Every structure is written in C-alpha cells, then in structure tokens.
C-alpha cells in the first residue's frame, strides 16, 4: 500500500512538448511510471517517444484510461489546464508549474469544489511511491521503498530530507510535495489523514516552513487523531517578519506564521521536532528504534 499513486496509476502529461515536459516525462517513464498520454492543443494525433498526444484531456482520458495527470504548462495557462483536467474527471492532478497568478488559483479551486478530483500543488515537486510510481520532477534514485511517509512544502529540501532517510536505511512509503504557494490543493493535513489510513506507513516526516497555518492545523490533528510517530522540521526559523522567502506562501504576516509557534504546536501535539535540518534522518531513526 501507499497513498494516492502506485503501480496501477496511468498518467497524462499536459504540456508534453515543452522542454520541462519532455525531459521529465521521459525520466518518469524510465522510473517505471505508466506515462500513457500527452496533451497539447493542436498536436493531437502525433506522439512523443511513442506516447500518443491528444488535443484535450477529455480525449486523452477516454482513449487511454488515465487516472492521473501532471501539468507543466506555463503559469499564464496552468489554472486553465487544472480546470480542464477537473472537468475531464482525472482523479489526481499534479501541477508542477511555479508562478501561477493567485487569483487564477482561487478561481480554479472554486471550479473544483464538489468535483471528485484531487489537486497536488501547484509549485510542487510532485509525488512518488518509491519503486512503483513517480509523478514529478524529483531525482528518483535517492528514494527507497519503505514505511515512512514524507510530506513537504518544498522541493530541494524534500530531496535533502529523503536523502538523509535513505542514507540512514529508512525507506519511504509515499513522498508528497504539497507545494509552496498560498493556494494549493492537497495540504499537509489532507496528506496526514491519508497516511493515517495507510497500513504501509508506520511513521511520517513533516517538512514545514514559515507562513500560513498548515503546521498548526496538522498539529491539532496529530494530537487528536494521528496514531503514528511524526518527525518534523520547520524551515525559516531565522527568517525576518513580513518578508517573502522565495515561496509565494512563505511569509510571516500579521505576527502569525512564524517558525516558533509552529514548532511549539507540533511539540505540544507529541511530534519530535528536529531543530537542525541535518538531523531529520537521525531523529526519525531514533524514533523508530525507540518503538521496538
């Protein structure tokens, strides 16, 4: 078991002919993911490295029985691509695109309300169930199959954390990059709930950062309902207030969203918090050893 994606997942690439789309579609295919279709308006009927291209997501889904899509289209058109995938009923929509206008995302989320699809991202590295399915831009070779779930708002910091886990001999069930934007699909809390129900996942690493209240909401849930150990790291302990730290969502605003409050809430909920980003793997190792 795992969450959201596994060896049965069949994936469409929206924007398969752009440089990023081409490169990562091949990398995902090489990893073993079933990349079954591409969508590029106006290029239906052609193919990319043997992967058939369709004009619309609706047609791609109908012809290939896809149940997931990954979006690389440029920021100005990405929200439209999300809505197209939503209308076509693609169950899991992963949006990699960084720099989508916030109000476009507000409207896209409004459009998605009540429809039976899930969005991951935007501005995220994607999702991977090691050894089974990679839908994203992460370097597949640092991941190992195992029992620790990973949730993160960041890209390269996730790779850093996963690398520490793998070097410590700890494999991963599924790693979910929820994205660094203020308006996202699956959030930290949603991912925690999925991991709580996943029998393969024995513990969770949660990589948070300043801004918003995702970690506080996660802490409340961990305290009440989460049955597995959680190791956390919150990036931005040294970030000044009121300044945006690269990610559109990483800002301490109105005295809220600071690292200290998040760390305090997670500790109070019983999670182990690594204060140095170099201690994520070793903290998880100690937690797992303490259980046995």
């Amino acid at each position, binding site marked *: 078991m795992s969450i959201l994606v596994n060896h049965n997942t069949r994936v469409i690439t929206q924007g398969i002919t752009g440089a990023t789309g081409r490169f990562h579609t091949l990398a995902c295919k090489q990893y073993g993911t079933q990349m079954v279709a591409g969508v590029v308006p106006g290029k239906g009927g052609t193919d990319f490295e043997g992967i058939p291209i369709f004009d619309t997501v609706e047609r791609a889904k109908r012809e290939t029985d896809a149940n997931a899509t990954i979006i690389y289209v440029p920021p100005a058109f990405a929200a439209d691509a999300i809505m197209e995938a939503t209308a076509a009923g693609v169950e899991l929509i992963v949006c990699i695109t960084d720099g989508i206008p916030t109000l476009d995302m507000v409207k896209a989320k409004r459009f998605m309300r009540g429809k039976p699809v899930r969005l991951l991202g935007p501005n995220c590295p994607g999702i991977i169930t090691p050894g089974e399915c990679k839908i994203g831009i992460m370097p597949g070779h640092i991941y190992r199959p195992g029992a620790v779930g990973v949730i993160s708002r960041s890209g390269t910091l996730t790779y850093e954390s996963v690398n520490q886990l793998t070097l410590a001999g700890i494999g991963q069930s599924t790693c979910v990059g929820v994205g660094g934007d203020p308006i996202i699909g699956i959030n930290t809390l949603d991912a925690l709930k999925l991991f709580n129900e996943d029998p393969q996942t024995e513990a969770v690493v949660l990589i948070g950062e300043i801004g918003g209240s995702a970690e506080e909401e996660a802490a409340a849930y961990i305290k009440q309902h989460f049955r597995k150990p959680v190791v956390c790291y919150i990036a931005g302990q040294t970030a000044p207030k009121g300044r945006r730290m690269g990610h559109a969502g990483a800002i301490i605003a109105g005295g809220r969203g600071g690292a200290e409050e998040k760390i305090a809430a997670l500790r109070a909920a019983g999670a182990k918090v690594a204060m140095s980003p*170099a201690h994520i793997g070793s903290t998880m190792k100690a937690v797992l050893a303490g259980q046995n």
Partner: protein
Amino acid sequence: MNVHEFQAKAILAKYGAPVPKGQVATSPEATAAAFRALGEARAVVKAQIHAGGRGKAGGVKLVSSAQQAQDFAASILGKPLVTHQTGPEGRVVRRVYVEAASEVARELYLAMLVDRSSEGVAIIASAAGGMDIEEVAAKTPDKILSEPIDVAIGVAGFQSRRLALALDLAGKTAAEFGTLLTTLYRAFMETDASLIEINPLVITADGSVVCLDAKMGFDDNALFRHPEIRELRDPGEEDPSESEAAKFNLSYVQLDGNIGCMVNGAGLAMATMDIIKFHGAEPANFLDIGGGADAEKVAAAFRILLADPRVKGVLINIFGGIMRCDVLAQGVVEAARQVKLNAPLVVRMEGTNVEQGREILKSSGLKITAASDMADAAQRIVALIGK
C-alpha cells in the same frame, strides 16, 4: 509589488471609489502650487513612502495656506522618515501628496485581501479605524469583522448589509458603503491585487464615505498581464541588491549576519539559514538561485552577495538531484575567478558526478572547501570566518 498612496488612489478613483482630490509634488514650490490648484481652504500634505504609520511619525500635516504647505514639504522632502514599519534607517521622502482635507466624523478600517484559509478573497472591516490594525487584532479580535467573498458570485448584497449593520452605518452612508465594496472588489479582481487597505475609511460630517488613505499590493505572478501596473514600480523604494537579484531571476532577501548563502530552492535556502544559526553564526541573506545554476547565474549571485560589506564568507548549498555536480563546480570556479573571490567559500553539493565536482573545486587553486553534507558545510564556514 507595492505602490504609493497616490498611485493606489488614482487606480481606485478610476473604478469610481470616493477619494479626495489631490496632486503629487516633488519640490516645496510644487507643493505650494498644488495647494493653490486645489482651491480649498485646507489641505493635507502627506509624505509618499511605501510604509504605514506616516501620520504618527510626522509625515502628514494639515495646512491652511500655500506657504504652510511649502514649508512642511521643505521640512520632509529629501529626508528619511522613520515609522514603525520602515526600520531605524527610515525611507527617504521623494514626493508629497497634497490632498483636499475632509470633515471626519468617524474613522473605520476596510481591507480586501486573498484569504488563505477560505481560499478566496475576504473583506476585513473594523469600527476601530485609523489605528494599527495588527494591534487591534491582537488586543481586541472581536472588533475585527471578516466576510469571505465567493469569487463565482462577487460581493452579495446581504454581505454589504451585514457589514454595514455591524459597523453601525445606516441610510445613505450604508448605501455608499455597499457601492464601495462592489467597486473595491472589481478593482481587486481586475488588477490582480493582493491587498487593498483603506485605513481610515472615513464617514464625513454629512454622512458620505471617503477613502482617506489607500494602500494597494499586487500579485507579482500576475504583473505580466498588467503592464500599466508594472510601470508604477518605484525602484527608489526597493533594496538595490534585491532589484539586481530580480534581474537575474534570483530570489534574494538581505539579512543582518555575515555568512552569505547561495542555495537552490526556497525551502533548502531557509534551512541553510537555519543551520548556520544552529552552528552559532548568522546568515547574511536568503538567496535562491532556482533550477539550472549556470556560471552566469552563480557569478551574478556572487556579485550580489559580495556587495554586502558584512559578508565574511560564503556557503553554497546545492541539492542537484539530477543536476551534474561537475558542471556546477566548473560554474562556481569560473564565477569565483570572474569576481576575484577572496572570502572563504564552502561548497556542499549533491547530485550526479559529485566526486568529479569535488575534484574540480580542489584543483582550482582557489580557497574553496568542499563539504560532505549540510552540517559539515555549516560547521566549516562558521569555523573559517571565526579565524
């Protein structure tokens, strides 16, 4: 991106919001002329900087003659104004806004912003206007009203009525307030704003609603479709090294420490700042060079870091994943030679061909230390600048 009060008011006026008439001036003489052009008995002269708290800091004055207007402008133009939002160095006042004075009966607070929790746009209002709203929110949260707007509908009539009632507005005033909400919402959506803040929104002696102050912020990601707003950018209000970084698509924020850092990815960049602090030193900046760190980008990043005289050493932390470390190392060496780097440099990199990359750094003849992981990198740079 933020704009000045006079620019925000010009945008809002275009949409039909009630703002006092006014004129911008950049010299004391022009301020006097603006006073005369207004033709009012009294006017307010306001310093134009991108920071709140101008009134309390002495940047706003009620004047009743052209001479008074001129004298006040002469006393603030070209000098830094220090408010609670500017930091101790303040912001230099380059312009003043001369505006018709209003007869104020009540001061309210009104804002519109992107609300992360409702994933939409929200109206924030309070009867406690003219004050620092964060202070009001902290001390008396019950005085803050919040109304989420459904972007598929817009501001519904009942929402305007509910807010008007809670703010104790009636009759003509309530009607004008409702119209203002619709107007602000249109301006917000059509300009891709991230914030509209009217503080204070005043009720005049005759019951009219007037936007006495206005602040607007815009979504940087949407500026591509608003060239007219992009043109309102005032480079004088921005940190010069941050503007320089933006040209190279680097995300940079200056901090107070002495270890410069260069990292790929925002989360890892924050984590790198944290680990420097964890090992007892202070980061000089946040710098995300993004994907595709080529020699040109690395050189630009070096120049920006080294322009800060406080920087005593540099830490590069790259988790390439699929990036080739030999290519990266060559870029770093090339860039370090180009900028004649003298400060100690510690490089931690992870990715393909990492051994070859380390060898390139080692044989470069430059003062470059290769680190094995993040903790090792932080310890090494802290030790190197400590000497």
